[in-house]
């Protein structure tokens, strides 16, 4: 085996001075919300460790998580791939194909048993014996299970791997199933979003490499550093929300003034993601900033909540028929009023009759 190159060595090779390397470390520390005392730790980790093998599998998905990943500006995706990790398998980017590609999987198990990260984009379908996603002639779920049983931990990229996403929307014809429901004996770090933000993806990976531990996860298995607040909590239009100033129609007066998109169905109030803080494509913008409400794309089952353009969404109680609380509620309340009125009328009639019979009303 050749000499293993550490991240620091790789950076030096890249023409980066020790000084700017250390600066990178302190920026990383600050970017992760850590104190300056962590910069030294990061530097130490990056100077001494060989690159961690990553096996990146694709199930049912649209590859936009990969596309998002390569948009990462800090660190650059190229630096992650060439210097920080060893991306030994990724069907979207790897040079080999066919059996030469699949061989790498067994080689990885032999060489790095229990020591590689399994990055999953997309999810396995379980209907038709798993044959809605065939790889190498076999169901994808087999490959997933085999690699999962030898990996150290799993990163579930995107809403597909984390929750099921679009192919799992009703009626989920292929029974597309999120990773944590198929693999139950390995830690699964969910990085939801459709897709997740590039720098969130590389942030999660670099955290694991530099601190040699998993990021702290919230109740639903998402790294707290990116998912513990809702877009709404840090939205720059929050002042308009609190003031009650809303866009009522696309391109109306309010839209041009950048009012809050709540009435246009913005799901920022219920969506845990880093869009309003990290923002997209190098911190340039995010859905709300462009004038469209948040779809809630990092939340479980955001596809089946009914229209993206209303604040009150579906309860999902009666299949695909619209079942919004306010609509059902108004019908129920209306029925109650009508029922009460009818009952009152009937009572009056019945009471008068009783009284007419001789007042023996309660006999």
């Amino acid at each position, binding site marked *: 085996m*050749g000499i293993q*190159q550490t991240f620091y060595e790789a950076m030096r090779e890249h023409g980066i001075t020790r000084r700017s390397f250390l600066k990178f470390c302190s920026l990383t520390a600050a970017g992760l919300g850590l104190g300056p005392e962590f910069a030294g730790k990061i530097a130490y980790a990056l100077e001494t460790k060989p690159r961690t093998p990553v096996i990146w599998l694709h199930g*049912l998905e649209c590859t936009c998580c990969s596309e998002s990943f390569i948009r990462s500006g800090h660190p650059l995706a190229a630096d992650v791939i060439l210097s920080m990790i060893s991306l030994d398998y990724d069907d979207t980017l*790897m040079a080999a194909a066919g059996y030469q590609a699949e061989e790498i999987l067994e080689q990885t198990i032999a060489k790095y048993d229990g020591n590689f990260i399994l990055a999953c984009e997309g999810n396995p379908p379980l209907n038709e014996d798993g044959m809605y996603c065939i790889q190498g002639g076999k169901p994808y779920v087999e490959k997933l299970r085999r690699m999962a049983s030898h990996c150290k931990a799993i990163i579930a990229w995107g809403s597909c791997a984390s929750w099921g996403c679009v192919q799992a929307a009703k009626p989920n014809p292929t029974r597309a199933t999120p990773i944590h429901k198929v693999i139950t004996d390995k830690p699964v770090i969910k990085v939801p979003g459709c897709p997740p933000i590039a720098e969130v993806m590389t942030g999660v990976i670099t955290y694991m490499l530099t601190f040699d531990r998993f990021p702290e996860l919230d109740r639903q298995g998402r790294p707290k550093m990116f998912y513990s607040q809702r877009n709404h909590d840090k939205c720059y239009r929050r002042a308009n929300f609190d003031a009650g100033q809303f866009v009522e129609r696309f391109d109306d007066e309010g839209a041009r003034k950048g009012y809050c998109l709540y009435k246009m169905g913005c799901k920022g109030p219920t969506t845990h993601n880093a869009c309003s803080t990290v923002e997209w494509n190098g911190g340039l913008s995010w859905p709300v900033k462009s004038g469209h409400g948040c779809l809630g794309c990092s939340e479980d089952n955001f596809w089946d909540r009914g229209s993206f353009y209303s604040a009150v969404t579906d309860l999902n109680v009666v299949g695909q028929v619209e079942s919004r609380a306010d609509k059902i509620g108004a019908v129920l309340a209306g029925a109650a009023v009508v029922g009460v009125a009818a009952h009152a009328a009937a009572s009056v009639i019945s009471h008068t009759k009783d009284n007419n019979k001789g007042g023996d009303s309660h006999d």
Partner: protein
Amino acid sequence: MTETVTANGFKLDTGGQRVVVDPICRIEGHLRIEVNLDDENVIRNAVSTGTMWRGLEVILKGRDPRDAWAFTERICGVCTGVHALASVRAVEDALGIQIPENANHIRNLMMLAQYTQDHLVHFYHLHALDWVDVVSALKADPKATSALQQSISKWPKSSPGYFRGTQARLKRFVESGQLGPFSNAYWGSPAYKLPPEANLMAVTHYLEALDFQREIVKIHTIFGGRNPHPNWVVGGMPCSFSLNETGAINMEWLNLVSSIIDRSIDFVDQVYIPDLKAIASFYTEWTNYGGGLSGKNLMSYGDFPRVANDWSQDNMYLPGGAIINGDLSKVHEVDVRDPEQIQEFVAHSWYKYPDESKGLHPWDGITEPDFELGPNSKGTKTDIKEIDEDAKYSFVKAPRWRGNAMEVGPLARYVVAYARGDKEIKEQVDGLLHDLGLPLTALFSTLGRTAARGLECSWSAHKMREVFDNMLANLKAGDTATSNMDLWEPNTWPADAKGVGHVEAPRGSLGHWVHIKDTKIESYQAVVPTTWNASPRDPAGNIGAYEAALLGTPMANAQQPLEILRTVHSFDPCLACATH
């Protein structure tokens, strides 16, 4: 005995050695290719199998048509946005919604940015390694690489030191013993023809392009909030202009768009195109292979309306039409509404129709999965060794135009526009052929397909400038509207409406057909570029574009599928798109 001739005139021989390549990597989605080789290792039969299905058309039933763009956008994150655009166009068509001029300009700009980024990433990150030997780059002399670079382009990043840096980085990388995505590949194969200097130049630009593509997509971020998967809206665009307010798109963002356009033009013209020409000059024999359907049947719907809401071909920046039997003197009009023209067949696809001898126009389309292996397949249901192409064998349907299998994509668009006499495109094509000393027929090949994509990337980068300037002129004239909300509320819609939206996506002709009933989606069908190109056989026996293109190609080594990868990659396959 084993020899047959297909309805579209290709000779197949199912004898000889069967070679299976699964997975095909460096594509989007999951594709399997099987070929039969004769004694000389020449491909005599080819089978293209799409091996994934998600059921988007089934999932869309019963939903609000205004939400459909978001669902269909998730058909693909590589050609992100194209399905969203097809979807909003289909719904607007059904409901009779006219979009404002600015929305048309913005949509054009976003699609052109998509072309530029998608083509660039395809060339460097999905296709280049078929032609470029990464390991050979270690042997290059950085000085000679620098000289080569300076002789073909004025791109400023060309010093010997710059190339030495990349080489050193590559060296450490290779020596680390952790080859990452370059593991187990075909380095050193005699099929690689580039000298080490050209390899080093290309590898360097692999990294540069990976960095630069992030910039191009910022056009999506500005108008749609993010990339991948920007936002769209039925009736226009969700973004607004506020030129005298604070809150929406202002001069600063417009300037950023303008700057991205300038930088894109520079990158494509000074890096991509020179690299393409340099690499092509070492592989001219690849103008003899991989032609397939391209010399016969090509199709484009035409796209990029200059003026909003006018779908006539003379209003298109990129005019469409169909070429049949290689007759460039006649461009046929394509009518996406005509039930006789576009039809999908499933006789060899893993779906069910009541009568599979017939095709269905997408407005009558059915998507009902039916996974079943043919009697002559080898292996078991969950461990397929060999596909039986006489039975159902792919999750890709077989779309046909007037019964013909068609090739779609940049090459098809370029040939159609060339045949229509489009000045800009004729100039580009003739220029390239002249520089490489090749005849027009050289276009009908693997290399021609790859070259057309490069030319189109340059075309789209330049076209962004024109569209952007038109948009500014419109803003200057006082029109700042970006969406038309007159028919936003479902209670303004007819009880029953059908619509079609078409887009020339990076990989070819894309159409979405929607039927809206009582304000909900009654049926939704997408016929996608890769559905055309990767299509399996139809009941008449016509083979699809991938299958046709692979025929007749000699392989240097049957165990190393480089040649298969080259031709299949020249189409830029997207299987998530194809099957959806």
